[in-house]
């Protein structure tokens, strides 16, 4: 529990204090977590060495950033160990780290203190090209340092009766991007395939493809439309590979067994993620009312377990938006209790072959939880250690969602050394 919450300290432990308390925890992973928690601000000096010809400019995204802007700033950063740091531009009043250029190095600053060297993400070579229909390829497929990312639909049908997840801004951000960038809400599968084919011409640039979108409840059985769309997309992408399966991840709704079997058997997809978002039924019902309405907490877990039988152990996981379990007014009031409950549920899933990974919760301006705060650094360090320990205990690999193929899960980064 953060000492602030015990009343021993009137503030959370700092980065140095956390590292002193947990000396075995990798410093770079702790920095990654803290930069995700607090966000970053780019100094004018840092932007003088940002070159859009060689560095990746932030573009289309599923979710908005803390500054609620679409200005052409750096997409994000890399650390010295090759770790992807997924963080976003954040207003100064929220106390972000500062990215600055000192001497001949790009660095992360906390106040005046140099914390660590960083690099901008390299720009994908396909970003300058147009599809055969004349659309900028960067609006069809985006990239992380080693992954192609496809967000085929930025609309989530849970929002139709105001049952979107309370930490999420997907539909509001879609409206923002549609007017600001001209991003289309639904992609054409053949066009997606075309961009993937172009991206694969850059040797060594990508090691995985991820598809993720908002939930689509429509169909003969709920979510059949979403499944059909993913199958079309994955088949269009598959045409550009000479193997029936290719390293890939589908992050989607928790589908039923028939839908999962179709996805696995009819496409080249190799792994499956259905984000449960919060590992507590009471909080799930409150925070994710659309998921609760259409599927339900226990059934979501059951579907994850059934997916292991189809995709195989080590190829199925679930993500949590860590910190929302502490959201006011119904969340846990003590970090210690939240940690215990989360790890117990994660272990229950791990026993059945399902991994849990976390993302640091970012209270986004266009989400219902916009005025709340995420958890302490100490909490996230302990959660990362706990989830990693569970995976070790049950020999659950996380290759498809690790530091290289995703980069957004600090707990997954720890699997690099086992």
């Amino acid at each position, binding site marked *: 529990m953060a000492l602030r919450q015990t009343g021993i300290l009137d503030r959370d432990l700092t980065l140095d204090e956390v590292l002193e308390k947990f000396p075995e925890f*990798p*410093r*770079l*992973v702790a920095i990654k977590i803290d930069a995700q928690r607090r966000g970053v601000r780019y100094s004018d000096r840092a932007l003088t060495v940002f070159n859009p010809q*060689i560095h990746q400019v932030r573009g289309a995204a599923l979710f908005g950033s803390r500054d609620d802007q679409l200005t052409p700033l750096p997409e994000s950063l*890399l650390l*010295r*160990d*090759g770790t992807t740091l997924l963080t976003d531009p954040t207003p100064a009043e929220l106390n972000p780290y500062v990215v600055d250029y000192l001497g001949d190095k790009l660095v992360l600053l906390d106040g005046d203190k140099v914390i660590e060297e960083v*690099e901008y*993400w*390299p720009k994908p070579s396909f970003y300058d090209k147009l599809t055969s229909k004349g659309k900028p390829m960067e609006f069809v497929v985006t990239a992380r*340092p*080693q992954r192609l990312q496809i967000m085929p639909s930025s609309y989530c049908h849970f929002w139709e009766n105001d049952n979107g997840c309370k930490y999420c801004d997907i539909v509001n951000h879609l409206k923002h991007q549609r007017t600001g960038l001209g991003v289309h809400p639904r992609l054409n599968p053949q066009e997606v395939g075309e961009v993937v084919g172009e991206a694969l011409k*850059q*040797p*060594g*640039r990508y090691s995985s493809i991820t598809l993720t979108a908002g939930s689509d409840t429509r169909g003969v059985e709920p979510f059949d439309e979403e499944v059909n769309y993913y199958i079309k997309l994955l088949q269009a992408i598959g045409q550009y590979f000479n193997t029936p399966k290719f390293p890939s991840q589908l992050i989607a709704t928790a589908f039923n067994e028939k839908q999962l079997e179709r996805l696995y058997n009819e496409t080249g997809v190799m792994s499956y993620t259905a984000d449960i978002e919060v590992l507590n039924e009471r909080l799930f019902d409150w925070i994710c009312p659309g998921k609760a309405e259409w599927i339900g907490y226990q059934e979501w877990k059951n579907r994850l377990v059934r997916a292991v039988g189809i995709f195989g152990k080590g190829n199925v996981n679930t993500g949590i938006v860590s910190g929302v379990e502490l959201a006011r007014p119904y969340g846990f009031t003590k970090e210690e209790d939240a940690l215990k409950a989360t790890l117990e549920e994660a272990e229950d899933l791990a026993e059945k072959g399902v991994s849990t990974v976390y993302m640091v919760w970012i209270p986004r301006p266009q989400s219902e939880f916009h005025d709340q705060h995420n958890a302490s650094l100490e909490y996230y360090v302990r959660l990362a250690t706990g989830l990693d320990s569970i995976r070790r205990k049950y020999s659950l690999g996380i290759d498809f969602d690790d530091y*290289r193929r995703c980069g957004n899960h600090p707990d997954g980064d720890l699997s*690099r*050394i*086992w």
Partner: protein
Amino acid sequence: MAVVWEQKVVELINNKDSVKVLATLDGDGVPHTAVKQSLHVDQEGRIVYLELLESSRTFENITRSLWHDQYVSVTVKGDESSYKIKGKPTRIHICGTLFEEHYIAVRERLGDVDLAAVCVIEPEEVRNQTYRERLTLQEAGQPFYVHLDRLANTVHTVEFSE
């Protein structure tokens, strides 16, 4: 602290015929050694090696060493000399221009192989491990480190009298 390289050592490391071994420690402190013929000194005087296997024990250990500021060691041996270089991993490139240049080059050289990372080691100490060199230094600095029979006269000229 960066080392000042002797040209002959750089040439030895960069010679493809030299034998090059990278020693790392695992999480239990157990040494792990592996031949890494891609080890070379780059233009900035850093040691670079290409990790072809994401799953390799060396790569795990290099990552751990970078995370915890630990040393690794490189041994290089040619026909007549041998050196050990102690250093710390400072950077692991898994993407970007440098990575992609090596990715293309290594595939041109070795065929259909993959490249997991380009690892950079900052050298801190170079030690000449050539036997003759070490022996000369030992004889000069540690005269007790010798078996007496090696110093004994082989022709006995002392006469004993009662």
